């Protein structure tokens, strides 16, 4: 178990180096630089040189990279080329929005997916068929499109939920929840489909095990066999897929936040990309990588916790 964690942590160092290095390496490979595209063709050479100095682009790439890494170690992710705002500070302000969305989407996917999966494993073929189709279609529907359809129905046609905007939790928990309902559903759809299928297969597999016969014959009711023993025996694959879904939600939130105009990290990422605001997008990539590393670490630790053979030794 300790070895497992150490391997993950050891792998995360090159991972973070790769993620941070990619942008520096690529920038040095291609002609032109952010200063040129920021200023446009009408800028004077003096303006250009001044901006290059301000952005430290006049330094060798390795020096730039070293300075960036040193900054990162002190929590300094640089400043936005465009607004001059501190990247770390901006991320900290926007993180709660994205996390609300991602955690909400993962929890919803877990609840609905498990319920759907268990029912389709135990309630006959029609529902199993439905889950098959649902997981295919749910996986194929683009989440931004689902978000738009939801907005068209519940915000535009029925007017029961807001189509866009975000209300901070501190301001009003009720409005906060309302503003998240549609985005969370849009984000969770493919996760629901995936989890339903994994749980269905897991529960079916577990129910076919010999020990289920032992417990059934000894009078343990089916409901306990399903919700306790079958689910527990599917827990490893369930945890794996929840981790995958959480990480996928990091990507999904980029689109969903744009559909619902939520001021999270995802919409910041799009703005930064459109403006070529490299420090911002780099900060986001770093933040998402760290979240991914932490999630994968938690998944690995829970493997060990879920397996009695590992836990004892």
């Amino acid at each position, binding site marked *: 178990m300790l070895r497992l964690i150490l391997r993950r942590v050891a792998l995360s160092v090159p991972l973070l180096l790769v993620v941070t290095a990619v942008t520096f390496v690529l920038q040095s490979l291609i002609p032109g630089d952010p200063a040129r595209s920021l200023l446009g063709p009408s800028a004077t050479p003096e303006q250009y040189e001044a901006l290059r100095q301000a952005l430290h682009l006049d330094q060798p790439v390795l020096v730039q990279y070293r300075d960036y890494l040193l900054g990162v170690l002190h929590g300094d992710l640089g400043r936005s080329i465009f607004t001059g705002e501190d990247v770390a500070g901006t991320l900290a302000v926007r993180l709660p929005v994205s996390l609300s969305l991602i955690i909400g989407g993962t929890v919803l996917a877990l609840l609905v997916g498990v319920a759907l999966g268990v029912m389709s494993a135990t309630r006959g073929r029609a529902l199993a068929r439905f889950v098959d189709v649902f997981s295919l279609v749910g996986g194929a529907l683009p989440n931004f*499109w689902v978000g*738009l359809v939801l907005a068209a129905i519940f915000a535009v046609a029925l007017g029961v939920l807001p189509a866009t905007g975000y209300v901070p939790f501190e301001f009003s928990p009720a409005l906060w929840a309302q503003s998240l309902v549609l985005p969370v559903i849009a984000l969770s759809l493919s996760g629901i489909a995936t989890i339903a299928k994994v749980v269905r297969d897991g529960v079916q597999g577990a129910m076919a095990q010999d020990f289920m016969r032992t417990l059934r014959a000894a009078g*343990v009711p089916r409901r306990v066999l399903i919700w306790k*023993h079958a689910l527990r025996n599917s827990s490893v694959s369930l945890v794996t897929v929840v981790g995958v879904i959480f990480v996928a939600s990091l990507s999904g939130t980029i689109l969903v936040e744009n559909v619902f105009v939520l001021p999270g990290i995802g919409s910041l990422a799009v703005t930064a990309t459109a403006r070529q605001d490299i420090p911002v997008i780099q900060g986001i990539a770093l933040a998402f990588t760290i979240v991914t590393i932490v999630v994968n670490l938690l998944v690995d630790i829970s493997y060990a916790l879920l397996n009695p053979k590992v836990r004892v030794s």
Partner: protein
Amino acid sequence: MSSSPTPRRRPRSASLTANPVATVALVVVALVAIAVALAPVLSPYGSNEQDLAHIFEGPSAAHWLGTDSLGRDVLSRLLWGGQPTLLGVLAAVVAFVVAGVVLGVLAGTIGGWVDALVSAVADILMSLPGVVLILAILAIFNQDLAPAMIALGLLGSGSLVRVVRAAVLAVRSELFVSAAIVSGLRPGRIMARHILPTVVSPVIIQASLFAGAALAVQSGLGFLSLGVHPPEPTWGGMVGEAAANLAKAPWLLTVSGGIITLVSLGFALIGDGLRDADAARRRGGEVAAPRTVAAPAAPAAATAAAADAASPGATGAVLEVRDLVIAFGGRPPREVVRGVSFEVRAGEVLGLVGESGSGKTVTTLAALGLLPPGAAVTSGRIVLAGADVTGADDAAFRGIRGRRVGLISQEPMVALDPLFTVGSQLGDVLRHATDLDRRQRRARALELLAQVHLPEPAAVLRKYPHELSGGMAQRVAIALALAGDPELLVADEPTTALDVTVQAGILDLLRELQAARGLAVLFVTHDLAVVADICDRVVVMENGEIVESGSVDELFARPREAYTRELLASTPNLVSTT
């Protein structure tokens, strides 16, 4: 090894045609791709040809899919917009396949530090948040789509690297490749002739599934107006345009989202279909066994029979089986038990003897309502502890299983849930098979473990099944079966999987418990020595029918049937044990 170098090629196409859904998906995706490629020929209008007199029109003869906010023909924009979209997907898939195959084959064939390095790279690739990096690359390359989609392919290739590596390792260990290496074929030739063909199938499957993901990302970028600039159409961009006019023309959202979903669904179905076909071939190429489930036990017959019996269990038997017929589903249904009748009286030990396949286990499972899916009682009657349980469901068995009858099965090591402690499982059973409260249940659990002669019962309660030996696990299983103090114990080959020395201990325990509790036991076995040792009466089954029955002494002294004589003869040490 007689297998030809490329034994896997032909069955793939054959199995794809055997999967109509995947075939249809392939045709649909191909048609869309061809139409998009022929956009300059096929599209009735230019991609940006405006007609402000005809905006937001529905489908018509002039505009098959209607027009958008600027009166542009939607069909034409779909066809033109498919080009950057599908080209982006293609670039990503090509990068995915090249990186995955090259790295996977390198890792699989060279091994050593190369393998370790490639595996680490694959691990890293798989733990990167892909889409954000794509955005970063888009930003650096000033919104150029090609490098972004190639990067997407590279970032996604971690999973393919693993699949290819595993496939290469598998084929390397096969005999014909070793033979080729020994016979001095050049590595390049071995690669081309033997290794590459075997990775083709997993690569196509993975590529097809990845194409769906790439399409999602590509259309997402289009939706965000990244990579391709409006007014140039992309499928995702058209969703964005539709979103801006959601209230005026919801139709536009259907068309643009529909084409993305259709193609993405197509990729998924092709991948799934190929994977199923591949899995079927691995199982030996046979078509999946028919899974038709026989109609659950004819309830009409059962209730009629129940009505006939004035009072079930009037014979004083704990278990009474009459004219039992059990069939497995399929066309035609296969009868595995035909007209079996016997009863187990209170306090007696009845041996149910026969070779494997004689139907003895299925018969006992039917008595407990535990037939596997696909098998069903088609006629006859089972009365257990005074209740007619013929074809009964779980609800009807409530109060019977655990409290009136217990089961011990053959393999103690798989009879317990590996993820729960002995105490937890015993607690579960006691909660439902007794009316004891929490504290009493713990005392009873300790008492039960002591009764099956497990040393240190308190320590055993805390143990997981993998910490028990086979003999200990079987003793725990016996404790589970007896937890609800049943009057009948069904023991299905309870000693077969155990060492000989352990067998004797378990038999002693069963004999002791039987005597102490006055248990009735249905003892299923193929071992006549065990029968002679423990049973009062014997029923002999062959091919789903009872061929002979009687008291143990009688049967052993004067076996009437040839089959029984054969069984007796095949147990040479019987005389000494009797």
